[in-house]
């Protein structure tokens, strides 16, 4: 970080700066400090508010209760559990992790595809006002989530008093009679779509601008069918954006806590909820650092999703220039 500041320190000309750096190292250091000083409050805040907690997670994830280095926390997370007296003991953290990955996967693929189609339907519309309105709506809906969203779905699709459930039941299509359960895996996925689809629309819409109209005209002049145009031009251009968007949705679905907690009252076994349980003290005494290990595992998965997103975004922006 400090060399960034050095690089950027204002210098009248590169040469003289270089000479003076060689001449007096303390002087250069002083100048760097002076240039960087005004951003110190910000850096200090970030260090205490973000860096320190993160370091604590990484450190304590690998510590036993007595402070010794160990991988035991991760062994607990990964253990499949064992059957004792006919009852499965342990293994809940592994199951939670698998559920989380499954939920994130489902709520990135399905909203990813739906969001792409929706964005295309919006992008090819001929009404400027409609486009503007849907862009604003996507921005708003992508921010929905948490307790409020959960309560909205409980009121509309709840089993007994849900208003929309009643409407559907009146036409003989009560979803609860056909295997739908708002408070289980697919119900949660159904609710997540409410912010994941608009998020995908936001991410993917700029990519459609990269799909130049002239390419389609050129393709059709060369005798390409619609199918061939999409197969050889449209999809290859869109693919990195769609995939990158799905990476981001994956991260969003993987880390969501509030919506799932409020919707299922904490009964769905996914990692964020299990972390919440541990913070509330529901953990065996000899596994005090398990929460850090779970947090660390989440950071690793989320890092992968962010790096995937960033790399693919760079490829996408190539067509937007």
């Amino acid at each position: 970080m400090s060399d960034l500041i050095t690089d950027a320190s204002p210098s009248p000309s590169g040469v003289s700066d270089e000479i003076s750096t060689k001449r007096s190292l303390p002087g250069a250091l002083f100048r760097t400090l002076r240039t960087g000083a005004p951003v110190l409050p910000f850096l200090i805040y970030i260090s205490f508010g973000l860096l320190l907690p993160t370091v604590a997670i990484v450190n304590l994830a690998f510590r036993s209760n007595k402070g010794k280095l160990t991988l035991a926390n991760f062994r607990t997370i990964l253990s499949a559990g064992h059957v004792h007296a006919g009852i499965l003991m342990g293994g809940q953290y592994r199951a939670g992790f698998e559920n989380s990955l499954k939920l994130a996967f489902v709520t990135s693929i399905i909203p990813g595809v739906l969001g792409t189609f929706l964005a295309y339907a919006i992008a090819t519309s001929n009404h400027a006002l409609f486009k503007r309105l849907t862009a604003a709506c996507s921005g708003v809906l992508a921010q929905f989530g948490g307790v409020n969203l959960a309560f909205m779905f409980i009121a509309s699709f709840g089993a007994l008093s849900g208003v929309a459930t009643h409407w559907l039941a009146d036409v003989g299509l009560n979803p609860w009679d056909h295997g739908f359960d708002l408070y289980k895996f697919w119900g949660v996925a159904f609710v997540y779509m409410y912010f994941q689809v608009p998020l995908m629309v936001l991410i993917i819409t700029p990519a459609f601008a990269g799909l130049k109209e002239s390419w389609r005209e050129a393709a059709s002049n060369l005798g390409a069918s619609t199918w061939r145009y999409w197969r050889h031009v449209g999809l290859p251009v869109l693919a990195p954006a769609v995939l990158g968007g799905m990476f981001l949705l994956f991260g969003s679905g993987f880390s969501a806590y509030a919506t799932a907690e409020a919707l299922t009252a904490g009964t769905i076994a996914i990692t964020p909820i299990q972390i919440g349980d541990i913070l509330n003290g529901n953990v065996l005494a000899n596994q005090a650092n398990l929460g850090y290990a779970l947090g660390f595992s989440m950071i690793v998965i989320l890092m992968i999703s962010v790096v995937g997103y960033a790399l693919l975004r760079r490829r996408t922006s190539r067509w937007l220039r």
Partner: protein
Amino acid sequence: MASLELGYVMEHDVNMEDRPELQPAQSWFRRVHWGRGIVLWVAAAYFIIPFYAAMQFSLANDNGQFSLHPLTEIGAQPGFFSALWLSTELAFVTMVIVIVLMVPTMIYVHLRIPRFRRVMEVITILPIVIPPIVLIVGVDGVTPFWLKSSQWLLALIYVVLAMPYVYRSLDAGLGALDLKTLVEAARSLGSGWVSIIVRVLVPNLRSALMSASVLTLALVFGEFTIANLDGWQTIPVWIYDAPTIDPRINTLVAMLALFGTAVVLMIIVAFDRKSHSRRS
């Protein structure tokens, strides 16, 4: 997470409008028309039905007919006003800290060390890598006891959560100004740094500052994870486990919160558009 994307839509949707409309001449376009109608109607149904149904659920009297009576009952619920007051206090303190911390820093970075922006851009990525549920684990591990039992710890954490929003708004706002000229003009007229910031730059950054603070407000009023796990009854926590007799009231407050968020964000988008068109 959506903090990232809210910025993008503001930057890019202008491009979308500049794009020439597709000509409906090609034969395949007819088919797309069909598909488009279906996609749009299904999406509209999915997004409108739950909202409408929940509104109907919460704004009803005991016979199930439409009624505004539940609105008058919100204030009578135990704990509602203390939750509202706690959220308001936290929002205010968070806004003050984040603005005082970020505005001078961002101005300085834009003026003197633009390459430091890359470091600051990283903070817009952080809420994805370290979401609230993970951040609170780490914070709990390092916070001294005297701070842990204070409600202001929440405000201090919310400053971190709000930084990406504030960074994005201010970055866009500062990018649109001719910062150097403004500062040099003010300095040659003899004003000091404080007066430059307060009397020259802040008025020019009004819309960026407004969207930054409104997004912070929406964030604090909607944040559930950290408040719940730290045991503070803010508005979202109250909605979740309020001791009300009538679930309609909780749902009604939730719907009002959603509605409020929507209105506030719409205003920001509209404001942003206005400043866009003024610039071009």
